[in-house]
């Protein structure tokens, strides 16, 4: 198993939207490297012919009928909004697709 570099931590932080400070990068790189080293023992079973378990229960087909339930009021929906305008959530400019 490869260890984890400072650059990789920076990449993970970007993916996870964490604006880490420089000293944090070093700090976390060391810790994550330790943890990953320890948990990497699971890969002993990587080649074993065992099905994965994603859900602890063998349930399937849990569905609800297509009937409308009451929604929140817009006031309730917006009650926690850091900023709002025109009954909408107001957010800083979005960089991205036009």
């Amino acid at each position, binding site marked *: 198993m490869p260890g984890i570099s400072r650059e990789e931590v920076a990449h993970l932080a970007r993916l996870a939207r964490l604006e880490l400070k420089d000293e944090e990068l070093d700090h976390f790189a060391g810790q994550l490297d330790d943890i990953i080293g320890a948990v990497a023992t699971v890969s002993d079973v990587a080649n074993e012919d065992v099905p994965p378990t994603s859900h602890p229960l063998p349930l399937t087909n849990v*569905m609800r009928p297509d009937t409308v339930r009451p929604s929140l009021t817009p006031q309730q929906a917006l009650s926690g909004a850091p900023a709002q305008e025109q009954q909408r959530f107001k*957010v800083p400019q979005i960089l991205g697709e036009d």
Partner: protein
Amino acid sequence: MTVTELVPYEEALATYDPVMGLEVHVELGTATKMFCGCSTTLGADANSQTCPTCLGLPGALPVVNATGVESAVRIGLALHCEIAEWCRFARKNYFYPDMPKNFQTSQYDEPIAFDGYLDVQLEDGEIFRVEIERAHMEEDTGKSTHIGGATGRIHGASHSLLDYNRAGIPLIEIVTKPIEGAGERAPEVAKAYVAELRELIKALGVSEARMEMGQMRCDVNLSLRPKGERSFGTRSETKNVNSLRSVERAARFEVQRHAAVLDAGGKIVQETRHFHEDDGSTTPGRVKEEAEDYRYFPEPDLVPVAPSREWVEELRAGLPELPRVRRNRLREEWGISQHEMQSVLNAGAVGLIVATTDAGAPADQARKWWMGELARRANESGTDLADLPIGPEDVARVCALVAEGSLNDKLARQVIEGVLDGEGAPDEVVEKRGLKVVSDEGALGAAVDEAIAGNAAVAEKIRGGKVQAAGALVGAVMKATRGQADAARVRELILEKLGVEG
């Protein structure tokens, strides 16, 4: 950005072979969202159709809409897909403010439907088979409005406003396998495929599939490879191409653009591109520093979906006739050409004509009205045929009145006009406007006598065997009766009175 001189289309096709992939998102017409009970009704007040689940509030959980799954299976079956015996939802992780949880609940490597095809008919009648890779279930995002920039665009905006009413509305994403071998007809195939898919979705009744409303959205992936080459070139992904015409134009533009880049010895960048309705061009999206890594994993808040084979067969048995099959059957029943059928289709008149014949009208009459007078009116007012204030029942009634001789063509036209103007049902319009054909033989006979007397020279010609001249006398009678006579009967009477055989 360097502007590339486009290569003429024919020239591009002489060197390269286009390969396409089409991804279509269809918003289902369910009453509630995919994972919560919020209403999906359009046009509601901002953020009035949201709940903890579709707002992604801490602690909220999803529950699958049974009708959403049923619609997905029916779409899959209509596309001749296999239906998974067991499949899961997966989380597609990426941050975007219009997505409340910052992951989209979707499906990844276990789609509910896979390995199908859709046969599409091109303008000249040729059938082209488009292979379907998969159809899967997912959810829509909220809607953002950009404030402060020019024309509501994202660039230059100071901030954005978010309405999550649309967040969580069920989507079915339908992905084709690479479409090869279409050659120069690739753009036409793309358009025909999306058109056919739209017809299919509507026939299934799972969505109104109105592209202009965003209920159906298409991404066009395209690459070129030198003729004779087997491996695919690098593709571009043109997002949100939202009309049939645009699908064709986008594919055509990308063929020309790719050819230009390749001819110049350049490399195609794998990127998303935006289509511009105004000039039919595409431009690159924002360049991301890092490749997307969606970190898909099975959605732990939902349990697997395992459609029983019995249920799948039940749904299969309940599928409607496929649009292409139905179209060909109707075309034969109506005895019209491929080309005429295409016009009917383009006008959106197939269903209306069928409904009119179901209401008792002969097919040719039904078609005549919908494709003639009514198409003209719809065109004038810029509405869809289906949105005109007249229905198949009304048109069928007018046809019946003509058939029984109560109306002639001219009067029928006036009745239609009356219905369109909101004067009521055909019989009411006839009543109010006094539009009955003059069938009182006495009154009609008098009018004929008058016309003969007033046009002695014409009458003489007719007596002498020039039967065609009767038209002038018919015209005079029709004028005298203000059009409310059966022209055929008038002609009969004239010839009878002048002692000639018709």
